[in-house]
């Protein structure tokens, strides 16, 4: 029996690795033929994304630029909000409320992103346009706000876990020296959790990068270089979703979309690896004692 279980685990482990390798191969395999039409330099550094124009332009730089804008604005909103929320749950909220907040967060994180896209489109965008007098309500800020709403629960829940599980010995050590609850939090717990928090930030960023639906719906989808957060933009992931359906197979446009997929894949992969490295480093540092 144990033998069979061992074998199942062994096989499923290798299968999942094989699938990742296959995905990578598939992405790159469908990307490479693009270079017959457009050079890697045109692809990575081209400033125009007009794949259906004549002649077509396959430069992903504006998409990359918009991805960076939206992702960073989102993480700028998400991380501090998650941090404050996590501290609220662990240190401010009454014990009974804590439990419900935690459950609420977990439920909220499983709301399909298309619903937030809908809210961004039908409530936030008109509000931006009519009340705040923006040129368009479908812009970077709207996308970042909606993206933050869908992202916040995950880092909040993780931070909450880390803060609650923080070494009781160290907490008592600080309190025995006369530190109150707040000083224990700011001088021992938070400094002690720098590593995990950095790693949580990276994981959130990875999730934001890959999020497609919201940005597709509310960012306005203009493949231009934004100069401020009130302008529309188009990111890598939503470009694939928006265009793949109308793109004939085995055309340069088709290959270029796979190229975008490969770029996204590599970027998310790198971000996750950086997050993991930070986490492992931190753990090793803590183990030294």
């Amino acid at each position, binding site marked *: 029996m144990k033998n069979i279980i061992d074998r199942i685990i062994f096989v499923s482990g290798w299968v999942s690795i094989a699938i990742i390798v296959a995905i990578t191969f598939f992405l790159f395999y469908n990307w490479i033929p693009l270079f017959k039409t457009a050079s890697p330099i045109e692809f990575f550094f081209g400033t125009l994304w007009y794949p259906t124009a004549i002649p077509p332009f396959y430069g992903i730089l504006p998409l990359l630029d918009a991805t960076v804008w939206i992702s960073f604005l989102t993480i700028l909103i998400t991380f501090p909000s998650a941090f404050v929320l996590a501290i609220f749950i662990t240190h401010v909220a009454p014990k009974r409320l804590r439990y419900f907040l935690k459950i609420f967060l977990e439920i909220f994180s499983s709301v399909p992103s298309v619903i937030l896209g809908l809210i961004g489109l039908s409530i936030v965008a008109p509000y931006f346009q009519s009340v705040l007098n923006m040129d368009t309500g479908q812009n970077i800020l709207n996308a970042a706000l909606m993206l933050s709403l869908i992202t916040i629960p995950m880092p909040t829940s993780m931070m909450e876990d880390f803060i609650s599980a923080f*070494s009781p*010995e*160290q907490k*008592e*050590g*600080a*309190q*025995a*020296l*006369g*530190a*109150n609850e707040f*000083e224990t939090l700011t*001088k*021992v717990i938070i*400094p*002690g959790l720098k590593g995990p928090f950095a790693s949580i930030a990276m994981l959130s960023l990875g999730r934001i990068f890959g999020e497609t639906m919201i940005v597709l719906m509310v960012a306005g989808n203009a493949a231009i270089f934004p100069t401020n957060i009130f302008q529309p933009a188009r990111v890598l992931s939503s470009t694939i979703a928006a265009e793949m359906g109308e793109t004939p197979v085995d055309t340069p446009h088709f290959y270029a979309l796979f190229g975008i997929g490969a770029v996204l894949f590599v970027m998310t992969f790198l971000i996750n690896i950086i997050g993991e490295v930070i986490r492992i480093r931190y753990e090793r*540092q*803590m183990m*030294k*004692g």
Partner: protein
Amino acid sequence: MDVDLKIENLSVYFGQKQILDSISFEIPARSITAIIGPSGCGKSTFVRTINRMNDRFDDFSHKGSIIFDGKDVLSNDYPVEELRKKIGMVFQKPNPFPKSIYENVVFGLKIHGVKDRKILDETVKSSLESASLYDQVKDRLSMNAYKLSGGQQQRLCIARALAIKPEILLLDEPTSAIDPLATKQIEEVLEQISKEITILIVTHNIQQAARIADYIAFFYMGKLVEFSKAEKILNAPNEKLTDDYLTGMYG
């Protein structure tokens, strides 16, 4: 005999469960009092009640009082941060912060608002010297405390507690997680500092109590069976229960 702490009829409960039952005795100043007794007799709970470490448990409650400087430390009027400034504590497992040696020692001072660099530097030196750790770490005060050995970490924790100049130091089985040689060093440190500070140490090790204690309190099932000078308890205890414990009948 100076009295530093006066325990009056102290009973402690966690929920419905009674952990300590009407403990009364007086802890003499500037000496080492050891609390001995079998596991589960309430000795740890007792010391943790003195500096109110148990306050954070919702189901903790108590009766009776602990008088220190003429005031009941268990009353809600007594500010707990002030209390812990005067009554320090060292725990069973060394628990330095993942900061430098220097930052560990000055932690309490900074909490209490000391910012003067000169005072901090001097306190680091004197506290580490009292914990006989200074010579080993004087060249690497900025090193992470986690890189110290277990025994050194525990002495750092003693230095950290001494840095805020407590009048009483509570130690909850401070040597149970470290090796015999490091234990010996810590015992020497305690004997040294007991000239100025009142020490209350919980130990499950009767030999340790015999080596360092001036007074011994024997706890059994939440009750104080006997409190007296160490020689008296060890050589001619009044109670048969104490004698049985010391001769290894149980425990």
